[in-house]
């Protein structure tokens, strides 16, 4: 009876310890290997920076043209309104 209990306990221990060992972190790095350039996976992608830079230039130019057009329209509207008032005086 006691042997049977011992076997059950050992089997349970083996079965439970297997996943615990499987979940252990990988062994620590034992040595550092020097390289001259940054690994490709760590390099900052340049294309988004380039696209952002060009997009900003375009947007800035377009917004400026739009702001001139808007201000010009406002001035023209005011001039028309004023010109309409003038003959009634």
């Amino acid at each position, binding site marked *: 009876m006691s042997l049977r209990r011992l076997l059950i306990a050992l089997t349970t221990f083996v079965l439970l310890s297997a996943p615990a060992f499987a979940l252990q972190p990988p062994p620590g790095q034992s040595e550092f290997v020097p390289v001259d350039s940054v690994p490709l996976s760590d390099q*900052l992608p*340049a*294309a988004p*920076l*380039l696209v*952002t*830079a*060009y997009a*900003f*230039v375009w947007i*800035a*130019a377009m917004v*400026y*043209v739009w702001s*001139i057009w808007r*201000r*010009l329209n406002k*001035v*023209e509207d*005011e*001039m028309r309104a*004023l*010109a309409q*008032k*003038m003959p009634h*005086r």
Partner: protein
Amino acid sequence: MRKAFPVLAALAGVMFVASPFVVARAPFEASMGIVSKIFYFHVPSWFAMFTAIAICGVCGLIHLFKTNPRVDRIAEAAAELAVLFGLMGLVTGPLWGRKAWGVWWQWDAKLTIALLLEMTFISVLLVRKYGGAGSDKLAAAVGIFGLAVVPFVYEAVNIWRTIHPLTSVIPTLPATMGGPFWFCVATYMLLLVVLLMLRVNLGKRQAALDELYLAYED
């Protein structure tokens, strides 16, 4: 000049649209790769800004001694464009620097003076807008000081030790890089001329409106 405007505007538009394709065909710089292509519109932005500042400074000088509203309108338009092109340079530069230097910004001589120059011309616009009577003369004087700063911005890399590339890069560009670069410079200069004409016309209409208000009040 009025007849030339549609032609110049169309040409500037076509060149501005074509410039990314021209830049795409240019070779990459060996150490910087893709991000080096920012150079093709970062440097022309500064060239356009310096030209706008020169126009603003010279017109400011004329207006300061011989009060001339027409010249003052050109100075005002040029100051606005100096801010616009300066902003383009100040935004595209850090995007390049982030990749090339690993930092967005460095408080070195070149970058700091360039930022101060941009702030000088923002102050010109603020003085004009909120300065009240006589602000046109004050803005003209600030614009002249801005013009005096330009050589320091350009030569900063040769005078002080900075991480920014030297001015010797441009004269030594190989033809494959120089062609697209000068195409972009021409595009930005043309864009400057077209935007200046548009902005001066706006100033002229605003002056006409002011005169109309005066006539109405009389």
